[in-house]
């Protein structure tokens, strides 16, 4: 065969893959993960890398924020050329609020866990959502405290058990329902193993001007992956019920396919990108707030694991707009634009005479 067959056309040497701004995927990677092999969080990290690469985000405009916990460590594992801030437990939401004031040009991504978000940080989380701080906030939700060896978190389902068999007696806090009630305009639930869905949801979130909440069930392979856990791989895989098959068309790509409106819902994002939601067994409209809350209520009551874009609202006035913040980053405004004049000063002094 090697002697008789004509030589096959030699494939052209493969160019390293680059994105629309000419950067390779490696620019979007970070350090090696130090999490347990098989951790759900590492899959999400990979989705983040791919989403930011595909969207062609400039790494230097990104601010990576996190609190404390296994999930919060992951910021070191992606976007190594972006500033990162691993702050204190439970305060990422408020830290992010400060960051968004200091420099409104930054693209903020926060990665946090269920303990960080709805136990120690619940108050700050809710108020961040209320303020509509511009931030993609990913909750890597494993229902337990991994870094302190597996205690229940506030998202553990009622009846779910610890490794020791002890059941959780309290109802879970539903991050998505809370986010919707606090006025969030982009709320999704997913499963770390559903790579394609996670990536599309991240890409959609990057186009949303306010807070986006992605509550992603991400199994803790070491402490919460046993029989009896409702946040295990097996449980998530066997129970995941996607509301739709989600696709994403970035603003810089032409739309090649005509969608049948009976089959696919199209969500137009403010930057010209589109989310496509192909119908599966449900006919779900994520722009209906009441329906979204009903769905979450049903999911909790019947222990259902719906994934997908749960709620979307295009109108979104992020915090910097609410406070009429100057368009340029505050952080780098020159001194002369920060200090009022001496005439202004004299005017103030006069009022105390």
């Amino acid at each position, binding site marked *: 065969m090697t002697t008789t067959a004509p030589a096959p056309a030699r494939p052209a040497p493969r160019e390293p893959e680059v994105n629309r701004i000419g950067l390779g995927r490696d620019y979007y990677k970070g350090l090696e993960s130090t999490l347990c092999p098989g951790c759900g969080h590492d899959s999400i990290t990979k989705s983040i890398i791919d989403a930011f690469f595909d969207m062609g985000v400039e790494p230097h405009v990104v601010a990576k924020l996190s609190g404390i916990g296994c999930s919060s460590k992951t910021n070191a594992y992606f976007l190594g050329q972006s500033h990162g801030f691993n702050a204190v437990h439970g305060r990422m939401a408020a*830290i992010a609020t400060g960051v968004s004031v200091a420099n409104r040009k930054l693209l903020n991504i926060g990665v946090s866990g269920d303990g960080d978000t709805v136990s120690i940080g619940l108050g700050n989380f809710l108020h961040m959502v209320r303020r509509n701080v511009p931030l993609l906030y990913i909750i890597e939700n494993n229902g337990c405290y991994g870094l302190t060896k597996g205690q229940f978190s506030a998202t553990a389902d009622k009846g779910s058990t610890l490794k020791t068999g002890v059941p959780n007696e309290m109802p879970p806090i539903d991050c998505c329902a809370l986010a919707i009630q606090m006025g969030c305009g982009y709320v999704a639930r997913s499963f770390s193993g559903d790579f394609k869905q996670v990536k599309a949801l991240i890409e959609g979130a990057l186009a949303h001007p306010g807070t986006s909440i992605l509550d992603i069930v991400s199994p803790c392979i070491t402490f919460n992956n046993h029989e009896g856990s409702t946040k295990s791989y097996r449980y998530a895989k066997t129970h995941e019920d996607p509301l739709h098959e989600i696709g994403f068309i970035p603003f810089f790509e032409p739309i090649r396919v005509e969608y049948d409106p009976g089959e696919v819902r199209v969500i137009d994002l403010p930057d010209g990108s589109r989310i496509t939601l192909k119908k599966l067994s449900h006919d779900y409209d994520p722009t209906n707030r009441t329906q979204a809350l009903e769905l979450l209520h049903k999911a909790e009551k019947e222990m259902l694991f719906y994934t997908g874009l749960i709620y979307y609202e295009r109108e979104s006035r992020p915090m910097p707009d609410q406070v009429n913040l100057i368009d340029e980053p505050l952080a780098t405004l020159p001194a002369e634009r920060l200090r009022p004049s001496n005439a202004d000063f004299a005017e103030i002094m006069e009022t105390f005479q």
Partner: protein
Amino acid sequence: MSLAVTAPEREPRAKAPQPILNDVVIKVATVNGSGSQSANLILMRSIFYMGVPVSGKNMFPSNIAGLPTWFTIRANQEGWLARRPDTDIMIAMNAQTAAEDIAELRPGAILLLNESLKGFLQREDLTTYVVPFDEMVKEACSEGRLRKMVVNILYVGVMAHLLGIEMTCVEKAIQRQFRGKAKAAELNLSAARYGFEWAQNHLKKQERFRLEPSRATEGKLIIEGNQAAAIGAVFGGAMLCAWYPITPSSSLCEAFIDYARRYRHDAQTGQATYAVVQAEDELASMALVVGAGWAGARAFTATAGPGISLMAELAGLAYFAEIPAVIIDVQRMGPSTGLPTRTSQGDMLKAYHLSHGDCRHVLLIPASMSECYEFTMAALNLAERLQTLVFVMTDLDLGMNSWMCDPLPEPSIPIERGKVLSVEALERLGGRFMRYKDVDGDGIAWRTLPGTAHPGAAYFTRGTGHTEAATYSEKNTDWKENMDRLARKFETARQLVPPPIIETEPGAEIGLLAFGSTDGALREARHLLESLQGLPTDYLRLRGLPVNEAVRGFIERHRVTYVVEQNRDGQVAALLHDEFPDLADRIQSILHYDGLPIYAQTIIDQLLIQEKENGRS
């Protein structure tokens, strides 16, 4: 040495046939929420407009309406304006406290008593004026629902007659108080005039105290420290005020909002060059400040003791991750909820070491209105220069009471942003940027801001152990080296905080060391010790922590240094013991901690007792 040093005017006062000129303490006892604050400010300002130096201190309850409140006015030609607890003239308007208010007066004091409280009067050793305010207000104000508010302005008119305050000054003060509220101004003007005329017709002018026009307030202002600090923040280029309402700091943030709204909007676009976020708690307000500081903004919060307790963890993050942040601590009386509306210097040690582990912070300690203003600007600069948390330690007395002062100086301190690497600088470094490397030997490393368009700009900030290159490390040597560098940075801070101010008298063996709102009482105490006892003292006013060598020198030069502070435990004295263990036996404490501002006599009394105990009487 006798223990009987007292204010010079006390003894002669009882016998003096001549009226005492321009030297009087007036105390007004009212119910809060009744409009008495306006009346009291007007009374104070009327005296100010006559040219007589004056201070006003409000002793108010932690309550909105219906509880007792007192306002003391001290007028003093020489400018001694600290609180003086012995009242010359009491205006008793509150039935809840009338018995106590009358009982606390010393013989010969003057009492202006609302007629309805006549039953409380059991003393004959006072000069009492019974005034039917409740009847008068019916005449002075035709609208029944406004009478509760107007009744207080009547005593201003009565006092004008009794003390010789010019009505033109009263009128000017009313116009100022009700600026832009013509109807309220008119109502109060006519009521004040009514009170004045009623007193002219019914009361014989007392001869003990007299106010006469002077020029001692020419060009001066009356301002509150919270306002002064807010002006400092506005002109110091603060970009974020994140706060959670708490007495006595709320009025600082509210003043910032008012001034920023007026003076910090871009002329072209009308957009704000600042943001104010009223947070959900102090954890959040501090986290906002730290987040903003990390991303390059000049951010501050203002709070009080309970707030700094909640901010403790984030304070440690700011220290260890080296993030600029400013906390203005308007101290109130603790521990716990304590006395929310009373003053204290009780947060000094807590602020200095706020958070767990080896944690030390820079404290700026203003004692005057100009320092409240300038130290706020300086704190914003120092936080960025040192890349750390800087406190401004004021208190309720400074923050919420009325202080006469010279106009604040025009903002001349430049806005300094510290060691921040630009894209060009990073280019020159050629990839050698290391976030925590002490390249200049001052312990302060260079930083980059998120958003810097250079591939070498990014680094990872964490509150965990890290190397010079900002990578995660649990290595013992990395940890220790970093902590040693932070200690070195703190040594740099010693030279950057405002140096102490030292005033000396020839032959003084005794040093007095004080800070903050104690200043006025301390100066007066020195004056009295010198003039009445011939006891000279030197004075070091601490204006910042960490202390520098000037403080050591001062303690070394004196046989004994009394550290005067408004807390129970002698917190700054303890800190000085710690800094200068070899001098510890020369440091003694004078302490005042009842929630009301310190006064000269308490300093004198405690000093003389301790001198006696030291075998020096």
